[in-house]
Every structure is written in structure tokens, then in C-alpha cells.
């Protein structure tokens, strides 16, 4: 009678890959604190009866970055130099390739960008565009550069121009040609052919939008109602 039986050599391979990737970013006093810690462990063992193979690998790291800001001391944060919003710029990356991995996408990845400039940088965008294998393919990199070439909306300038545009649109919708003309005249005063060409200008700054508003208010346009 044939019967299956366990292999005389029981083999047990345990691979434990443990990663505790704790990432914190908290505001404190004068700095943004960026803290990360990583723990990686691998254990391989074999039944000791027939000659065991044991392997253990441990890796533990921690890092803390105090990124200075312009926040005042005391209860009042203040607004000097942008206040707490104005921090140093940090971009960092940790990639740990797969440990005894059979797959290209194994491993651990950490990315961190702190600061208003750092998060806008193409370098940061490329960093975050990388795959688990730590690589970004050439086509994706080209595509990202192409997309970044599209004019970016300036949040504060857009808020100002939107206020003007809503008023302008209401006059156009109601057929108020006299007030529409005031908008076009003001735009011509700033070098545009008409108010529409001002609205589609991607390079309008907050200052230019405020200048336009001042011209329109001087012409009797009320933006408070």
C-alpha cells in the first residue's frame, strides 16, 4: 500500500516582512515636525533535525526633521513672512528594495515633501509619480512635463478675476451695454483689446486684477452688491 508521507525533511521557510511605516507631520511651536520610522524584519528557518538554515535580517530606522517656519512665538502665530505657512522646503525619499523578493514591486517606499515650493516642484511631482519599483518610465516623465507646461491657475488671482467676471457676466446677461462698455474700456486701459481678453489671460496677477477692480470702481461699478 502506497501512502503519501511527509517529506523526511520538513522544510519550513518563514519569511516575515514587517514594515511599520509611521509618518507624522505636526505643527509645533516654530517648526513643522516631519517624523518617520521604519522597521523591517525577515526570518527564514528550517527544521533543525536535518540541518537547519536560519537567517535573520533586521532593519530599523527613524528620522525626525524640524522644518523651521516664520511662526511667532507665543499664542499669536503672526503673519511675518507668511507666518506658519512659510516653512523650509524639504523633499526626501526612502526606497527599500524587496527583501528576498520574487516580484519587482516588492519593497517599501516612502515619499515626503514639505513646504509650498517643494510640493509644487517638478522634482516632487516626479518623485510621487514613481512606481513601487522606484522607477518612472520615460513616457510618464515626458507626459508630466507636458502637463506641467499648461498654465496653472493662480488661486488668489483667480478669486479676484472671478469677482470681476461675475459682475461683467451679469451686465452682459441683462443687456446693460453701458456697464459692459466700462469693463471693456478699463481693460483697454490695461493694454487688452477688451475685457474678455483680460479674463483669458493666464498671466493675470493679483495686483493686476486689483488694478482692474480699482479702475472699474472709479468708473462707478459697485462690487459690494
Amino acid at each position, binding site marked *: 500500500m502506497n501512502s503519501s508521507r511527509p517529506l523526511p525533511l520538513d522544510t519550513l521557510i518563514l519569511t516575515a516582512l514587517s514594515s511599520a511605516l509611521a509618518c507624522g507631520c505636526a505643527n509645533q511651536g516654530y517648526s513643522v515636525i516631519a517624523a518617520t520610522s521604519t522597521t523591517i524584519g525577515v526570518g527564514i528557518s528550517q527544521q533543525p533535525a536535518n540541518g537547519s538554515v536560519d537567517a535573520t535580517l533586521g532593519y530599523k530606522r527613524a528620522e525626525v526633521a524640524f522644518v523651521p517656519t516664520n511662526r511667532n512665538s507665543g499664542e499669536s502665530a503672526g503673519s511675518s513672512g507668511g507666518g506658519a505657512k512659510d516653512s523650509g522646503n524639504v523633499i526626501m525619499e526612502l526606497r527599500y528594495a524587496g527583501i528576498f523578493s520574487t516580484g519587482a514591486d516588492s519593497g517599501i517606499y516612502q515619499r515626503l515633501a514639505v513646504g509650498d515650493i517643494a510640493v*509644487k516642484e517638478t522634482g516632487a511631482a516626479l518623485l510621487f509619480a514613481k512606481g513601487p519599483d522606484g522607477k518612472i518610465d520615460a513616457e510618464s516623465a515626458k507626459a508630466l512635463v507636458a502637463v506641467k507646461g499648461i*498654465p*496653472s491657475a493662480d488661486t488668489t488671482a*483667480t478669486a479676484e478675476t472671478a469677482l470681476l467676471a461675475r459682475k461683467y*457676466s451679469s451686465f452682459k446677461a441683462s443687456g446693460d451695454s453701458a456697464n459692459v462698455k466700462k469693463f471693456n474700456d478699463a481693460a483697454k486701459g490695461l493694454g487688452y483689446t477688451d475685457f474678455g481678453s483680460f479674463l483669458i489671460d*493666464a498671466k493675470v496677477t493679483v495686483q493686476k486684477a486689483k488694478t482692474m477692480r480699482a479702475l472699474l470702481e472709479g468708473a462707478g461699478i459697485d462690487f459690494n452688491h
Partner: protein
Amino acid sequence: MDTIVRRIDLATVQNLETEIQNLCATLAGADYTLASTFVFQTQLVLIFQK
């Protein structure tokens, strides 16, 4: 048909809803309406046409 393309960085925008509304209102003043959008990485691309 005229086309204008704008981009919003989703990683940095404070209030996405307001930003989109402001952008649409601004370009609506020049008779452009939002025709299409897509996202690539952290970038929201908006295509306006009139």
C-alpha cells in the same frame, strides 16, 4: 471653436470646489464653458471651449 486649457495642482489647492468655480466664472465671462477635464498625477487639467 476656440479652446483654452488650464491646470490646477491638486497637491497645493486649498479649496478645490471654490477654485473650480472661480475658474469657470472667470472664463464664462469670456464666453468659454468647461468642456472636459482629466487628472494626470496630481494635476487637474480643465479644457474650456467657446
